[in-house]
């Protein structure tokens, strides 16, 4: 079942940088879809289009369609807040808010007006367990989020996204600032999470896509060159550019 349908999506920034040209693809539910390609190719722009975070950036023009569960999310009348709760994002650097560990995870729920302490406690515990942080951090929930390691911070950011019980989780090079051990922990979490969520990741290298992705989209200079199952892409790429990229001829 396709969770996200993108048709002829083009995005132009007002300064013309990192635009997308005529992207069409379908992202299936409960799978990990990886967006690969050299940096500056439009992967971040694509991700940020899916929860309308591009609204904050200097986007000049968006054309085409993005349907999530059949709803056109580019509709100007759309409730973007509800969209962003449904489509969560983890950024490339660990970016905890300047709050405590607990407050970082409860932040999204508190924004919705949730004040009941037991509801917040339960939600924080559940999210921290999902990102496998609970055992490490359960005794220091009121410490500042910046007091934990970078790897823990990034998993905290994942927990923060999970606390809203989104349907789609996007990760924009989530492990680019992390050591191999923390990276492995995130990857394990993602393989677990895809049972309940649709995961879209811009992995920080092609190997990562190989380890965890079910589907792979290859972006080059704002264009979608190829999209198919990970197996197809890595064993029988149709486009010579895809082949060159995954074999390391450029990147």
């Amino acid at each position, binding site marked *: 079942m396709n969770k996200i349908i993108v048709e002829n999506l083009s995005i132009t920034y007002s300064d013309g940088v990192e635009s997308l040209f005529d992207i069409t693809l379908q992202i299936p539910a409960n799978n990990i879809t990886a967006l690969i390609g050299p940096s500056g190719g439009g992967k971040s722009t694509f991700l940020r289009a899916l929860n309308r975070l591009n609204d904050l950036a200097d986007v000049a023009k968006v054309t085409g369609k993005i349907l999530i569960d059949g709803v056109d999310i580019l509709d100007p009348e759309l409730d973007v807040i*509800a969209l962003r709760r449904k489509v969560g994002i983890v*950024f490339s650097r660990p*970016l905890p*808010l300047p709050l405590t560990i607990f407050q970082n995870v409860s*932040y*999204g729920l508190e924004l919705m007006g949730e004040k009941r302490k037991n509801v917040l406690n339960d939600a924080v515990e559940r999210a921290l367990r999902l990102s496998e942080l609970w055992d490490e951090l359960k005794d220091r929930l009121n410490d500042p989020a*910046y007091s934990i390691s970078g790897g823990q911070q990034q998993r905290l950011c994942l927990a923060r996204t999970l606390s*809203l019980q989104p349907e789609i989780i996007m990760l924009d090079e989530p492990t680019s600032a992390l050591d191999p051990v923390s990276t492995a922990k995130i990857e394990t979490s993602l393989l677990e999470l895809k049972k309940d969520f649709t995961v879209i990741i811009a992995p920080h290298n092609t190997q990562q896509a190989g380890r965890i992705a079910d589907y792979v989209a290859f972006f080059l200079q704002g264009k979608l060159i190829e999209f198919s199952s990970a197996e197809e892409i890595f064993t029988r790429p149709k486009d010579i550019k895809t082949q060159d990229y995954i074999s390391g001829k450029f990147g």
Partner: protein
Amino acid sequence: MQNTRKSNLTKQLRIEKIGFTIFTIFAIATVLPIIAVVIYIIYLGSPAISWEFISAMPSDGMRAGGIWPAIIGTFYLTIGTAIFSVPLGIAAAIYLSEYAAANRLTQIIRMAIINLAGIPSVVYGLFGLGLFVILLNFGTSILAASLTLSIMTLPVIISTTEEALRAVPQSFRVVSVSLGATKWQTIWRVVLPQAIPGILTGVVLGLERAAGETAPILFTGAAFFLPRLPNSPFDATMALPYHLFVISTQVPGMPIQIQYGTVMVLLAFVLIMNIIVTVIRSRARAKRQW
């Protein structure tokens, strides 16, 4: 080759040393006048300082007694200025930093604020006289003087607050919005708390200037001689800077220690404001983690 390199190195080290010395001398030079002024004032003013000087009404044509009504007056004027200028200034800065589009209107507002900061204070005084005292009929009063001082203080508060808001990393805003926050929720929960130390700096700079100004209150609220405490915002008041002007130029036979004693009290007033804000600010900064 070895030799040239070595002599180059010594030369560079010598230049480094000379440069360092020059900068140190300049740094000390900026502090010296302040120290000299303070010592001079304490030397001439301290004989006047007594409990009576601080707590009593002036007497004998201000040549004796205390300056209590002027202290209280400056206190009221500072509070009054804060009541108007702090909320307005912070709100304006939030608008400019977080909401305003990069267009012609914003440009004009910014330019107006910059120009407002450059207007001589006596012009504010005349403006306040025209608008608050006469047109709005507040009379020569604490209210009119506070409003006049507020307008003068606004540019300082706005520009420092705006700078403090801009110093909060943009990534915090993006993260907050990505978690479903509205713009205002983001500002209220994340941006403002992080900007508080910077905002406090702006507030205190502005209010200190307001506390020490003479010209804006000259026509709008300051009383030449009023040996009682003001009893409403519509009452005129004595104030330290204007009192100082009066006793330095308008009263013959004024003992010099009373003039310098008044200066000492005004300096102490500003210093106490500074200390309070520094304490609050360092507490807020200690909580900051990025």
